[in-house]
């Protein structure tokens, strides 16, 4: 009896300390979020309703709680807004179309080359985002391989070029965000128990049906994660439009960039940022609801 008692007494102590450990582990992350996310966000919200000080020098603003800033910001830039979402959507779809077969092949068909292929998928990250985008400009450029191949096969006329077009922006974004699409899809395909596919075959489903009814639905968490990881940064991106586009392909990121750094119109930049964030949040909420991933394993 004494022995059992001693046992419970010692067991309860680490139990109580154990209750605190999860919170202690969360602490650094929470502090980080507070410092670098919550506080800037409050600052941003505050800036977004300011107005210029009458007669003051450029870049000096006072708080007047002017919500009209939002209406103005949106109505002046609605074209860039919709362009951002259309480009981001196109890039996401393109990336999905390229990534899914790629991830599928790596997960199921690559054998001993699996790790090498995965490294190759991530390899572009070893060079800077900016350099990669500039390189992409050269690839699509007049002397680049894409144009010459297309011209050789008379798929485009001798005067058509790709650089400084919407196409270049979308392909650039597709390229830049491809790993964000490939890796989550790979991860969820990899996790699927191959015996489920065998079971499907055993239950009279041929290869295609097995893919439609078993493999693809089970890879949905990866598809949802991948599309979000591609769409969200793509919608806010400005580097691709800047380097690969022209004035008519400006995205909302470019507007925010120029408002903030060039025109020093902080309130409008802040209002645009907030609007973008809200729009993305609404879109992905609807999307996740529709995809119903929380029901998936």
């Amino acid at each position, binding site marked *: 009896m004494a022995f059992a008692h001693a046992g419970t007494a010692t067991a309860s102590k680490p139990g109580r300390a154990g209750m605190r450990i999860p919170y202690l582990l969360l602490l650094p992350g929470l502090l980080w979020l507070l410092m670098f996310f919550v506080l800037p966000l409050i600052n941003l919200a505050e800036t977004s309703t300011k107005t210029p000080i009458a007669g003051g020098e450029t870049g000096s603003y006072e708080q007047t709680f002017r919500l009209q800033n939002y209406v103005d910001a949106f109505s002046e830039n609605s074209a860039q807004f919709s362009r951002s979402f259309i480009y981001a959507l196109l890039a996401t779809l393109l990336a999905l179309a390229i990534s899914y077969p790629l991830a599928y092949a790596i997960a199921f068909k690559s054998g001993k080359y699996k790790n090498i292929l995965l490294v190759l998928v991530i390899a572009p990250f070893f060079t800077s985002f900016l350099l990669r985008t500039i390189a992409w400009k050269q690839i699509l450029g007049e002397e680049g391989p894409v144009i010459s191949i297309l011209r050789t096969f008379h798929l485009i006329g001798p005067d058509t070029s790709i650089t400084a077009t919407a196409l270049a922006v979308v392909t650039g974004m597709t390229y830049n965000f491809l790993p964000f699409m490939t890796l989550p899809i790979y991860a969820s395909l990899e996790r699927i*128990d191959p*015996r*489920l596919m065998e079971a499907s*075959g*055993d*239950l009279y489903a041929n290869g295609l049906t097995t893919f439609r009814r078993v493999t693809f*639905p*089970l890879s949905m968490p990866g598809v949802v994660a991948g599309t979000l990881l591609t769409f969200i940064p793509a919608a806010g991106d400005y580097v691709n439009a800047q380097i690969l586009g022209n004035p008519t392909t400006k995205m909302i990121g470019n507007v925010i960039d120029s408002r903030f750094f060039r025109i020093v119109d902080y309130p409008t930049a802040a209002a645009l940022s907030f609007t973008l964030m809200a729009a993305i949040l609404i879109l992905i909420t609807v999307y996740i609801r529709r995809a119903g991933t929380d029901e998936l394993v």
Partner: protein
Amino acid sequence: MANHPDAAKTGDLKLSSITKSFGDFLAVDDLDLVIPKGSFFALLGPSGCGKTTTLRMIAGLEEPTSGKIYLGDTDLTDTKSYRRPVNTVFQNYALFPHLTIFENVAFGLRRRGIKDVKEPVEKVLALVELAHLRDRKPTQLSGGQQQRIAVARAIVNRPALLLLDEPLGALDLKLRRQMQIELKWIQTEVGITFVHVTHDQEEAMTMADTIAVMNEGRIEQLGSPADLYENPKTAFVANFLGQSNFIKGTVESTSGTDQFVNLQGTRIAIPAARNSSTHKSLLVGIRPEKFRIHNVGDATTGNKLEGGIVTDISFVGVSTQYQVEMPWKQELMIFEQNDGGAPNLRKGDAVTLSWEPHFTFALDGDEDVRSGLAGADAE
């Protein structure tokens, strides 16, 4: 109605010289097997002996290196798995986690283009007594329930052949016994040929009409549970199914249907039919429960061995287990029912052993006495 794959292809399942090698490792070695239509057939063997591989070849999930598979007169060897009238209950159930129980069970029917799946699915769910769980997802089910759904998902298709790969392995003993009875009942109810893989000898014995004992990719012996137990042809089978005492002996003479064997100096009789060896030197097997134990000098019938000394006694409720050392320094194991028939014995007592000749079986003298023991111990 769409073509039902089973319609034409029924009959006995026949494996003809089936071989499967992985690299230079022979997982299944030149296997010949006929499984009669409508039977409950068990494939029993230790871990790694090739049971799953054999099953996968029948299901079409693995391609035999050589050999043929027939169902009735149809050659299935090159038929894709989704075209075979065969369904499998997988070792880990392999239920589709994204589908409800109802849709899991309806999967095979839908793939065959059957429009009205509601009735057959509900019927089979009622059969496995899980109709109330139809809208749940597999992860919301207990292991035993998942197992029954896996069976339901397979038998709803009325395949010619149902393959079960250790479907009860993950269940606790009580649930396993209950499921064994249910499976056996379902099999009689639907009349489908069941091929049941297991490494649990008790499971195989209680469920199957016919058992094939497999070892290292080959079939050691095939027969009814009683036949395998009473008349094992190899030490492996004798050890894998139950326990045995093996005593070395040599054939002295044969007269009519009886053989006389010199068993360590004592002459005993064995029905010739129970000797599966043609050699002169034999390994004589006697199951522990076949021995009777007597005080020295008591009257005995049948064969008799004298000069034993009790070295250990353990009481296990329904029976008592004795360890008896024989004059040739071999320890024998004897089980006696606790029905008052056995004398009151203590350690060190001298005893005489007797048994009926027809409970003896004889194997080749060069059989390995310990073969199959590791597998049996692992149980």
